[in-house]
């Protein structure tokens, strides 16, 4: 059924449709509206049979989820930015314990300086934490990804992080099609844990593992990540078949059949990119530009990406994160995926800390990129001024 909803509300309702049994909430902008929404659905009785805990920190939020998941019930929490970093120790722990927790990450920059606006620095900090990470392009996908996330997580026994851009999606009102409960129930069966804290069958979860076995444990976790690609694809296809919406999966392509230049990105900026690309193609009258929307950042689908981009001459990666002193993060991973192919790869670092990204700005770099590491909309005057004073002080 169609609704005009704030993104956070859409996600809250999607979560409720998945019947989580434990939800823990700790406020941090811009994720807050989501847990508020779930809380309201619990209190109003629309989400039944669910424990909603107001905890004292993100560390507690994820830890409560670890506990409840280990006790065998579907568990959910959400966070953003510093919150993710604050819980990071337990983020690694959750995947190590193979607990299929689902967590929404309302993407936000990481300070200092303090900045509450959107970018992907928080998500990137967790890229090796052993979680699956899916990025939503719009609120429809944000809602749909959560429904898929529980199924993927529970199939693979891995936690899943659904990333949606802070404010840009979490606070945006859009049309969202939410399925009926019975449809979701058909798609997502009740959670049956492989192991849990059960007095009838006691076992220990979280043993210390010595050098003699640790490599094997880690290698198996690596294998599960690789296997995840096919599971995510399969469940995406299942979802599309049932709900008639092409959402999720590993990635989506747009106009790449004859494209010389393909723009790769994740999250909400893709909409603006697509409009930009349409306009460019329209103006030039041909279709030199295409877009690749990456949904699954973890696992990183090298093969599928390579297959999709092998005919391109140039790949422009627009990303909302920066590896300081290194450049792009997503771009480097794309580069690895395309290793050996003669494709120019350009990194466009854009929208850090919520910096506005306009079609005009994008069109400019897409048409003629200057260099292969571009900072979109960077105020050169400020840099020149500030950097000069630095050099002067050093007496350089």
């Amino acid at each position, binding site marked *: 059924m*169609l609704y*005009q909803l*704030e993104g956070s509300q859409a996600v809250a309702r999607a979560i409720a449709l998945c019947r989580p049994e434990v939800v823990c909430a700790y406020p941090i*902008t*811009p994720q807050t509206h989501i847990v508020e929404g779930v809380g309201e659905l619990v209190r109003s009785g629309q989400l039944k049979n669910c424990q909603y805990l107001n905890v004292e920190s993100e560390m507690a939020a994820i830890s409560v989820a670890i506990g409840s998941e280990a006790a065998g019930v579907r568990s959910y929490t959400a966070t953003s930015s510093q919150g993710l970093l604050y819980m990071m120790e337990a983020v690694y722990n959750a995947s190590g314990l193979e607990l299929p927790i689902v967590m929404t990450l309302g993407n936000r920059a990481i300070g200092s300086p303090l900045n*509450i*606006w*959107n970018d992907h620095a928080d998500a990137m900090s967790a890229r090796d934490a052993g979680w699956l990470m899916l990025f939503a392009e*719009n609120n429809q996908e944000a809602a749909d990804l959560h429904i898929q996330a529980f199924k993927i997580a529970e199939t693979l026994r891995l936690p899943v992080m659904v990333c949606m851009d*802070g*404010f*840009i999606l979490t*606070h*945006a*009102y*859009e*049309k969202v099609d939410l399925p009926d409960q019975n449809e979701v129930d058909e798609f997502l069966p009740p959670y049956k844990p492989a192991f849990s804290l059960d007095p009838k069958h006691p076992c220990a979860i979280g043993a210390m593992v010595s050098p003699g076995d640790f490599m094997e444990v880690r290698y198996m976790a690596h294998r599960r990540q690789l296997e995840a690609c096919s599971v995510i694809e399969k469940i995406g296809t299942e979802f599309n078949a049932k709900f008639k919406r092409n959402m999720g999966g590993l990635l989506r392509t747009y106009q790449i059949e004859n494209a010389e230049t393909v723009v790769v990105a994740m999250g*909400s*900026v*893709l*909409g*603006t990119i*697509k*409009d930009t690309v349409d306009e460019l193609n329209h103006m030039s009258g041909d279709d030199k530009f295409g877009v690749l929307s990456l949904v699954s950042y973890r696992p990183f689908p090298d093969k599928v990406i390579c297959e999709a981009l092998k005919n391109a001459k140039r790949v422009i990666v627009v990303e909302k994160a920066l590896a300081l002193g290194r450049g792009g993060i997503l771009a480097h991973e794309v580069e690895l995926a395309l290793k050996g192919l003669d494709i120019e790869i350009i990194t466009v670092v854009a929208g850090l800390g*919520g910096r*506005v*990204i*306009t*079609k005009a700005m994008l069109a400019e770099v897409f048409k003629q990129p200057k260099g292969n590491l571009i900072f979109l909309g960077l105020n050169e005057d400020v840099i020149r001024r500030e950097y000069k004073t630095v050099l002067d002080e050093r007496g350089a």
Partner: protein
Amino acid sequence: MFQIRIHGRGGQGVVTAAEMLSIAAFLEGKDAQAFPSFGSERMGAPVVAFCRISEKEIRSREPILNPDAIIVQDKTVIEPARAFDGIVDNGFVLINSPVDVETDLKNARVKCIGATEIALEQVGRPIPNAVLLGSFAALTGIIKIDSVIKAINTKFSGKIAEKNVKAAQVAYEKTLGER
């Protein structure tokens, strides 16, 4: 695609106005997108909210730089917020003011209405957003007053909803009359 930018101050329901506008459009089967100028604005600070209305899917998420219509909920922000920047030729400007406001706008369709006064009189609180939406429906014809009323009812309930609906209707009629 029709793009609206709403200016005002925190606490005046600027964001809510944009949301209601998007709901109204949605109810007419259109695609609509509403979003605030994100931030941690507190009561009283100048705020901006945006709304796009279109027949086909809206993908772009850049802020509205060239609005087809501007709603000013508080005329004291016009200067500091440079509220009229980028308005398209022949665009609409709806200002919350009982008296006409001098603007240097050339070919723009400017309309002033004492929305706060109407709100106080109808709702009892100085929240002009619903009033302005009623007026906006009459001024632009982009959305029907019925849709605005439905939107108000989805956002509010009970007495508040009733009163705001009444206020919107009053403003709608008033604006129509003065057109």
